[in-house]
């Protein structure tokens, strides 16, 4: 083959090889520990290593991988705090969500929701490097496409309110989810005021 195609083949092969995991055996031990879900919900991980697969479904249960062996191990909350103080403490705070509702079929907030805006702003100010996601929702009255647009408009209206209140537009992401996530399930075409809402998530 000519020089051009030889070069191309080498680049492609090198790219693939770079993706392969290291083949030397690990120098040390690996430990994987499941922690409790923040809301107390059921949780779990599945660890695959050395041809074995182990599921861990209880908080503070874990796996130790060393010298080709896979061993289950139980830890206590105190042990975890002692073994991993920095990584435990450095986790950012859980996001906080607010739900704002609208008058009828437009983009005007209810009085109760308008009052919540200040609480949102205070949550933003409290956090280091805050980011905000504003997610618009609709009920199932109207077409999917129209509702995607309406939900986007609602989310943008709320973004504008936040920006008018001093929040930087650069940290606000606007998402319209249309009818995809109703708070109250209904049949298609059914009007349901509780689904006409905007969720503000601050992280």
């Amino acid at each position, binding site marked *: 083959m*000519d020089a*051009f*195609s030889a070069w*191309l083949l080498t*680049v*492609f092969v090198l790219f693939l090889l770079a993706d392969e*995991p*290291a083949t030397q055996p*690990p*120098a*040390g*031990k*690996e*430990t*994987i*520990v*499941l*922690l*409790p*879900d*923040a809301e107390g*919900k*059921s*949780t*779990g*991980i*599945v*660890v*695959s*290593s*050395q041809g074995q697969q182990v599921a861990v*479904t209880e908080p503070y249960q874990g*796996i130790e*991988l060393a010298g080709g062996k896979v061993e289950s191990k139980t830890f206590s909350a105190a042990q*975890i705090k002692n*073994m*991993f103080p*920095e*990584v*435990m*403490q*450095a*986790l*950012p705070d*859980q*996001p906080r969500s607010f739900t704002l509702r609208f008058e009828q079929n437009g983009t005007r907030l209810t009085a109760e929701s308008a009052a919540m805006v200040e609480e949102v702003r205070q949550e933003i100010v409290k*956090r*280091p*490097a805050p*980011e905000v*996601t504003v*997610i618009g929702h609709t009920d199932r009255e109207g077409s999917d496409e129209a509702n*995607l647009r309406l939900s986007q408009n609602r989310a943008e209206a709320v973004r504008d309110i936040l920006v008018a209140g001093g929040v930087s537009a650069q940290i606000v*992401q606007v*998402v*319209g989810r*249309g009818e*995809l996530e109703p708070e109250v399930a209904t049949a298609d075409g059914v009007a349901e005021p509780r689904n006409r809402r905007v969720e503000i*998530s601050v*992280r």
Partner: protein
Amino acid sequence: MNETLRNICWVSLVMLLSVGAANAGEAIGTVKTLKGEVNVVRDGAAMKATAGMRLMAADKLVTGADSSVGIALQDATLMSLGAKSATQLSEFRYDPVKREGNMLISVIKGSMRFVTGLLGKQNPSAVGIRTPTATIGIRGTDFIVSVADKD
């Protein structure tokens, strides 16, 4: 080499390059807090991390002694690294309308704590974490991964 083969090679090369380009330029997360010596390695160059710094796919987070960092990804996944640690945000694609995509996190050394975000809550199989010897699948979780270093 004949005309057809040369054309195929060019098309393949362009496709290979565009796979990389599709991920380029879009922030996938943000550094929230940091302590001590924290760097973000991107395209082979190390940059000092700062609070609020945007992260890109393929970024590698590296911490020094007595250091730590906390980050959030676009789907509200939360992560932290402890001291003398390195973790790479190998892959991250997320559509916030459909809540679809995929992510792959590679723990290279040290400690990393991971709390699942919206992507993992909607589709656990879309989230993968790997260490030098293991791959980890999730079911809506908070967990720690520790990889001992030679030193």
